[in-house]
């Protein structure tokens, strides 16, 4: 029984559409849960700057405020460990997702980012067996998600030596930054067969290619609505083919239910994996339909969905 339990969301960043979608999903699902009396409260807290120190302080405040569980999207997989440990010591359930933490006392809802990177190359290998030149757009330097996706892409390229990464830039998971960086390196690149990305950067890359009047390569997308819509337009116009992959922002709601289940006394494994959300040529239209204008393709979890994930992993 968790009717008197209070759950907090500690979030380190709210500055892009993915994060806003994540907060919206949280808000929507937890409000229902509170109204139905499943839990007593589910408050969201976001730090002003994307900083581990600020988030650590925030978590310590949440401990003081007596929350029973804290759901964390962490600024750093390791730098919050001190604060997370304090929370565990105070008897608080800590569930991390997306930006997960390494502290053993916490639960982790992880996306296999490495596999996500590798899947891009696998898709490309099937689509263009003869291989070709790749441009890699990376995320924010110094952050672990960037490192993992990159590692996956590298592993994929090693397995498929017909592909060669001829250029790499940091797009910071933002369309405009990616556009700027790609436009700068593009003139000095040879013919590009495909662009591998991390999400939030595909549309910017497409614009840079269009502006430079270069043949449009296969750009792997990252589930943002503008990316999907651009893909749809190209598909209708000239049969453009690609795939899109990213973590669904609604994973915050899964984390919420996991926390609730743990509080409810359920035995839950410390490491859960959620599948990333992949969109292909066939289900593009369906996904575009269900994606909010300007938002991100999303999957929200109900209690039953969550129980399935927990069960499947047992």
């Amino acid at each position: 029984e968790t009717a008197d339990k209070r759950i907090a969301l500690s979030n380190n960043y709210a500055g892009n559409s993915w994060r806003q979608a994540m907060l919206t999903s949280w808000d929507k699902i937890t409000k229902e849960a509170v109204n139905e009396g499943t839990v007593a409260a589910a408050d969201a807290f976001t730090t002003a700057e994307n900083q581990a120190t600020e988030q650590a302080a925030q978590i310590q405040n949440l401990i003081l405020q007596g929350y029973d569980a804290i759901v964390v999207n962490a600024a750093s997989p390791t730098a919050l460990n001190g604060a997370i440990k304090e929370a565990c010591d105070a008897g608080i359930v800590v569930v991390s997702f997306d930006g997960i933490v390494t502290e053993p006392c916490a639960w982790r809802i992880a996306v296999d980012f490495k596999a996500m990177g590798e899947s891009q190359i696998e898709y490309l290998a099937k689509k263009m067996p003869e291989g070709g030149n790749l441009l890699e757009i990376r995320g924010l330097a110094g952050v672990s998600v960037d490192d993992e996706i990159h590692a996956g892409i590298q592993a994929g390229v090693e397995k498929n030596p017909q592909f060669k990464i001829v250029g790499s830039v940091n797009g910071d998971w933002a369309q405009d930054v990616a556009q700027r960086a790609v436009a700068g390196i593009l003139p000095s690149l040879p013919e590009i067969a495909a662009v591998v990305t991390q999400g939030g950067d595909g549309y910017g890359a497409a614009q840079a290619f269009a502006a430079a009047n270069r043949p449009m390569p296969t750009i792997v997308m990252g589930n943002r609505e503008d990316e999907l819509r651009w893909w749809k337009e190209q598909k209708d116009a000239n049969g453009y083919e690609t795939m899109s992959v990213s973590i669904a922002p609604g994973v915050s709601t899964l984390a919420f239910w996991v926390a609730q289940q743990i509080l409810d006394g359920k035995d839950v494994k410390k490491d859960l994996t959620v599948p990333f959300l992949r969109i292909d040529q066939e289900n593009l239209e369906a996904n575009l339909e269900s994606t909010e204008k300007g938002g991100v393709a999303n999957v929200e979890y109900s209690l039953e969905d969550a129980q399935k994930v927990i069960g499947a992993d047992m």
Partner: protein
Amino acid sequence: MSAVRNLGSRPWIWSFAAAAIVWVATVWFTGGSSAFGLSQATLTFAAFSIIVGVGQMFVITLGPGNIDLSVPATMTLSGTLALKVMDVQDGMILVGLLVAVLVGVAIGIGNYALIKLLRIPPIIATLSMSFIVQSFAIWTNRGLRIKPPEMLSSFATSYSFGIPNVALIALLISTVAWVLLEKSIYGRWISAIGQSSFAARMAGIPVDGTRFVTYVLCAVLAALCGYLLASFSGGAALNMGAEYLLMSIAVVVIGGTAVAGGNSNVPGIWGASLFMFLVVSMLNTYGFGAGVRLILTGLIIIAVILAAGGRKAVR
């Protein structure tokens, strides 16, 4: 005598020289084939740094301690609000522009009110302001990317006579800024205030009024840049201004405007903006990682300031 005069205008030469060197180094890597494409891309993206840089330059010219850290948040809010108001309709383009300008005016007024009425140092006043503006941007649209009107976005991304339209706008703004600085009374006034605000006051210059107008001008240019950038990149993002905080300051400083105030330099901002884009492209082209890129950027800033020298002691 003319040698003495040239001394004052020399610093900006270096930013152009540096930009040229980096351009050659990048083009050379590809055996010359990238010359045209690289130049076009450089002009396009330098344009945005130029627009915010010009605004920041006006503020920095006001003398030590004057700086506007609210540039990124202003860009974000104006882009977000303008695209929301326009709502993809071509007919609303001018209304959107007006909204952007009003956002700039409001933030400029807010900044100077904090500086003047509450005596908060500009560096902290504008930072606090930027937090509030950022929250406002989140509250208005929750980060949803609204597309710009078709006409506006195709204007922002296309070329006239082979030159990117945004670069032409930057040129227009720089020309106006240059005329303001070199030919107008206002330009004389900010330069005088930057050299000594007390002497300016004693020469009959309305110091507060001039400073106020300058902070508003800087915010309006940032807002305009946000409007253009959002139209150019297919929508406003909550973090779209982030890059332009240090960028706006760096292009001013590297461009040869005196940090001690009083001496500003429009051409230098062009040189420095071209250079800042090219240096990243070059390091990307040569395959350097983020760490080396940062270190080189820092060393270059220090090298330029060392070469340009401090303000020489005057008799």
